[in-house]
């Protein structure tokens, strides 16, 4: 490598745009082609995409005039609402699809980790899949051989190495898949929500590995996640993507604060409530969220609370398929992305959650929160087994009013929470 390399940004994205078709892909079948040739119009209803409406009918810009320059060794966290264009951007950088306009320059070997286990073949053994997956991710045979033992050890699958992976538990499968990917040594690594794997212990291990890779070797990482806590603790810079463009770029805390303060309220624009139509709701094939609401002690929907009063968080959702060992989680983050605490309804659920509509309510008692901005985000998992729905939409709220601490000075009180503690002051008599 020449000296030029160390000076020029490792990734340069210049005026990149990507246009997608929307609605029915009518022209992708011969039937559609015939209909069009006969002059019959597609009857895709027009969607209101605002500024992102494409220049051709039935298209929209997923990424529009995007610019970003990244230096070697940066860990970039990409945040933004669903559909903002984060994943499209990663797809463009990883060359899975190509831009409609603009140029991306990559000055280093790139590997993407858009989903762990890509290309795993169920009939092949763990050993065979390590080589297959490694090769698909762009590793040379000797590289895989050199790292083989490390990968096996990391994945903790030792004695199952020569068993077809179709007989693996889902936990083992995911561990093996992540282990291969984690031992890639590209100069640029793209990661999309990969931390939605395995149990908490393994996740911790993965976070550690990522940090390790980034620190030790100065690799550049692009990290897309809804987990603001992970973005905050791992990334050196965060980029907020809104409507397909880079809205803001800077220290993760600042960008997260800005993001949470501008998160659209949705559901008619009521502060303190997010409600989704079936089409746009955060969902998997097992579960669909319906609404997330904050109410105060008087039962009013609100995004403004008194520190001395309780905050009620109501999550409504529809279970579409039985979920074994599932639970809902509601995480409370501070506005700069620090995790304050998590609550769950685990003990209240049956061993298998049967399909139907549910409402989980947690009440944060008064005298717990600090006077500052927060956001709540729901998620669902089956502990020790898998993630079902990762944290997605953030609902921001602000706590003010009576402070829970006893400071007289009107300062900004530090801490993610500020529980009302019992404080006692005594003068100790001078015993001699």
């Amino acid at each position: 490598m020449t000296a030029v390399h160390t000076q020029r940004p490792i990734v340069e994205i210049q005026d990149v745009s990507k246009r997608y078709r929307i609605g029915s892909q009518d022209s992708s079948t011969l039937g559609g082609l015939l209909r069009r040739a006969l002059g019959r119009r597609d009857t895709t209803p027009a969607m209101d995409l605002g500024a992102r409406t494409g220049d051709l009918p039935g298209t929209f810009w997923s990424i529009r005039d995007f610019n970003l320059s990244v230096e070697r060794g940066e860990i970039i966290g990409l945040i933004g609402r669903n559909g903002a264009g984060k994943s499209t951007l990663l797809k463009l950088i990883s060359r899975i699809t190509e831009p409609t306009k603009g140029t991306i320059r990559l000055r280093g070997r790139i590997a993407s980790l858009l989903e762990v286990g890509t290309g795993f073949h169920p009939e092949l053994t763990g050993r065979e899949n390590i080589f297959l997956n490694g090769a698909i991710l762009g590793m040379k045979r000797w590289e895989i051989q050199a790292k083989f033992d490390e990968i096996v050890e990391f994945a903790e699958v030792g004695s199952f190495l020569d068993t077809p992976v179709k007989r693996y538990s889902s936990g083992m499968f995911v561990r093996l898949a992540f282990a291969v990917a984690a031992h890639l040594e590209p100069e640029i690594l793209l990661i999309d929500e990969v931390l939605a794997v395995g149990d908490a212990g393994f996740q911790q291990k993965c976070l550690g590995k990522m940090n390790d890779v980034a620190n030790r070797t100065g690799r550049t990482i692009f990290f897309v996640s809804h987990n603001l806590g992970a973005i905050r603790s791992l990334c050196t810079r965060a980029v907020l993507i809104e409507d397909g463009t880079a809205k803001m770029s800077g220290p993760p805390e600042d960008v997260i604060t800005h993001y949470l303060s501008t998160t659209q309220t949705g559901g008619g624009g009521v502060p303190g409530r997010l409600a989704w139509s079936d089409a746009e709701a955060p969902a998997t094939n097992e579960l669909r969220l319906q609404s997330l609401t904050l109410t105060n002690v008087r039962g009013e929907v609100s995004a403004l609370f008194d520190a001395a009063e309780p905050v009620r968080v109501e999550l409504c959702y529809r279970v579409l398929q039985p979920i074994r060992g599932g639970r809902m989680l509601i995480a409370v983050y501070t506005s700069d992305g620090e995790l304050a605490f998590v609550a769950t309804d685990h003990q209240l659920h049956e061993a298998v959650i049967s399909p139907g509509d549910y409402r989980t309510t947690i009440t944060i008692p008064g005298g717990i929160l600090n006077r500052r901005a927060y956001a709540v985000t729901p998620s669902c998992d089956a502990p020790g087994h898998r993630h079902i729905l990762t944290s997605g939409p953030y609902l921001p709220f602000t706590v003010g009013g009576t402070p829970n601490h006893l400071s007289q000075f009107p300062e900004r009180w530090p801490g993610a929470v500020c529980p009302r503690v019992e404080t006692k002051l005594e003068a100790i008599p001078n015993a001699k």
Partner: protein
Amino acid sequence: MPDASSKESPQNGYEIIIQPSRGWLRINWRELWEYRDLLRILVRRDFLAKYKQTVLGPLWFVIQPLLTALVMSIAFNRIGGVDTGRIPDIIFNLCALLPWSYFSQNVTTGAATFTANSHLFGKVYFPRLVVPAAASISNMFALALQFIVFVAFYLYYAFSGADIHMGASVLLIIPLMLLTGILSLGVSLLIAASTAKYRDLSHLTPVLLQLWMFASPVFYPMAKMEHHPSFSWLCWANPMAPIVEATRDILLSGGAWATPQMPQMLVTSALTAILALIFGVAAFNRAERTVVDSV
């Protein structure tokens, strides 16, 4: 609609430039070479995965053409009365099925490249050409197995006094199979590229292959086609026709061409195959750039 391509800048191997362009036939040979390990592993996977799923395992590579030869001998030669001359009909058909099943296997697997791998292509980049190339190499192993069966039948018939013999020309089978490989890769890439655009074409592929099989002298001698008043042009137009007939000439008649014009026909076939490959690669390249947006 603008298409896109990626290329590596010539002066600097570490710089990858991703931008839309209108390249027609741009193959990044160096990148393909970089991914040779993937090619090797995919070949292995295709082969292993195919037989691990079944009880009889690799035997299927053998049983299928054997049954086809048997069924077609009954249908075409015994009932239909198609005369295979001095050559027993089973070995006649089995021999022609060597290039034909290799060809049809390649076309079937190659044509489904985008549809069968959409989950993979949507997640990670590698030169897509590796997948159909790997498939046609792993199909070569099936061809080798089939060849062993053919040899067994050949020996049986030769010892029972059938008028069949091989000579030094048997070595010609290698370029002939390579020609089949090139042709089938080209055809499958063309089909893969068009199914990427028009998905319903995938329903036509099996029909097309069947039609093609009957338009090739697999179960009847090429002389029948050559002397047919309205179908003699097929000997020249169908690149598989001379390949199938030549395979039989080489393996059963010691290399004596049944048709005097065979060398010219083979040259035509080879030229067609090369054209098909060039157009196939170009179409495939165009399709692979944005195929994940629509499949």
